[in-house]
């Protein structure tokens, strides 16, 4: 009984952590060049791109979920991608959730990194260039280390936000154990079906987790601003 209990509870947790981890890693990888470009470029339309990145902050998850359901389906691009390995649709699948989470959590990762890059200013990079550093070297030796608090903030927020994702997953997930039944969906399910003991356990865990995340963020912020003075 106890074992059933714990595996029933653990599987959504593991799935959520895997989703958050993969999403955050991909966002750091692809989001960093984007953030760099947003911080350094002078083209007039870059704020339009920044706006697109930030839009999930404002849009209800249902809007994203609705479009994703169509885009991931057999008549959208997702269906063609799924066709590569003989599938029909990317909805109801873990890769589908990763795509949704990438869009949904992008602003939480890109924005702090962009801010950190902008805070460096032109001067240190100009100095690096005078010292004959290649752009690649000055990025890795000057910009990246100075922006590390931005990376850390972005990573933590991206991870936490993906873990807390609900609406998008509800719309494109299909509640499949080990594939799309993530933590927030499991809680919803338990509440809806009156299994409140299980709902309580997961919900309390999320409350503790959220506290730890925000507390950690505050400590980091404080240390960074302390170090600057």
């Amino acid at each position, binding site marked *: 009984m106890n074992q059933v209990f714990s595996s029933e509870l653990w599987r959504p947790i593991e799935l959520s952590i895997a989703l958050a981890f993969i999403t955050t890693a991909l966002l750091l990888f692809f989001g960093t060049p984007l953030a760099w470009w947003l911080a350094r470029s002078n083209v007039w339309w870059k704020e339009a791109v920044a706006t697109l990145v930030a839009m999930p902050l404002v849009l209800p998850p249902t809007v994203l979920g609705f479009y994703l359901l169509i885009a*991931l389906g057999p008549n959208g691009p997702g269906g063609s991608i799924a066709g590569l390995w003989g599938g029909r*649709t990317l909805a109801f699948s873990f890769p589908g959730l990763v795509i949704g989470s990438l869009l949904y959590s992008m602003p939480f990762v890109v924005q702090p990194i962009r801010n950190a890059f902008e805070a460096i200013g032109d001067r240190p990079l100009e100095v690096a260039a005078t010292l004959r550093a290649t752009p690649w070297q000055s990025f890795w030796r000057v910009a990246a280390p100075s922006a590390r608090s931005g990376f850390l903030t972005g990573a933590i927020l991206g991870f936490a936000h993906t873990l807390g994702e609900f609406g998008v997953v*509800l719309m494109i997930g*299909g*509640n499949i154990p080990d594939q799309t039944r993530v933590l927030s969906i499991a809680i919803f399910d338990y509440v809806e079906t009156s299994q409140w003991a299980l709902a309580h356990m997961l919900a309390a865990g999320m409350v503790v987790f959220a506290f730890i995340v925000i507390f950690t963020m505050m400590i980091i912020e404080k240390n960074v601003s302390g170090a600057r003075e």
Partner: protein
Amino acid sequence: MIKRRQSIFLIAGVFLVLGLRNVRADTAHVAVAANFTDTARELAQVFRNNTGHEAVLSFGASGQFYAQIREGAPFEVFLSADDSRPKKLVDDNFGIADEEFTYAVGKLVLWSRKSGLSLNEETLKKGDFSKIAIANPVAAPYGAAAVEVMKALGVYAELLPKIVQGNSIAQTFQFVNTDNAELGFIALSQIPNRKEGSWWIVPAKYYKVIHQDAVLLKSGAKNNAARAFMVFLRSSVARTIIQKSGYATDEIASRNR
């Protein structure tokens, strides 16, 4: 400064909206099982024309409403997709015993959006599809019925990896309607215009009959509109609409005595 001004506008707006909503006095808030969505809309319209009362409808999974009603959700009437939840509400003093009755008997169908398919037992046994949608069997009676059918045909274990769950029967419908799942178990009443796609009306021998019960909740005992709605629901006018929508009503009379 700007923030403060905005919030004043916001609060004023909220009060305005609340004020407008309360102009009508006789209003019943009805929680409706998702499978009954279209039928309930039609009923509410006829109800308003006939009585002048307003039935404000909310749609969702029966299990969800059941949990919400127990926590004091502001509904006066509950149209469930099963009979056990309304009976439990009566037993636990949330519902009124004399006002608990079957309003419809549900018909489960296996539905595909593609026209011209011949769906039947063999479709499920062959399993020649990648996804089949059902409603969450714990929260939605049509989902539970779908599981019973697959078990009765001895294909549940094989189909399990292909099952996707909608949070209600409405979401299940939408999974099939967007073609993300090729097949789905839904209610007959949900098929658009009762003619789109292909379907198989699952023989009643494969699942326990779906008695859909209505109950007047304690909160609605003194609500004229709610009481009138319960009377209307048993009228022959309502019964005709319900039947036309794809439910059986003939055995209701005997069941409700």
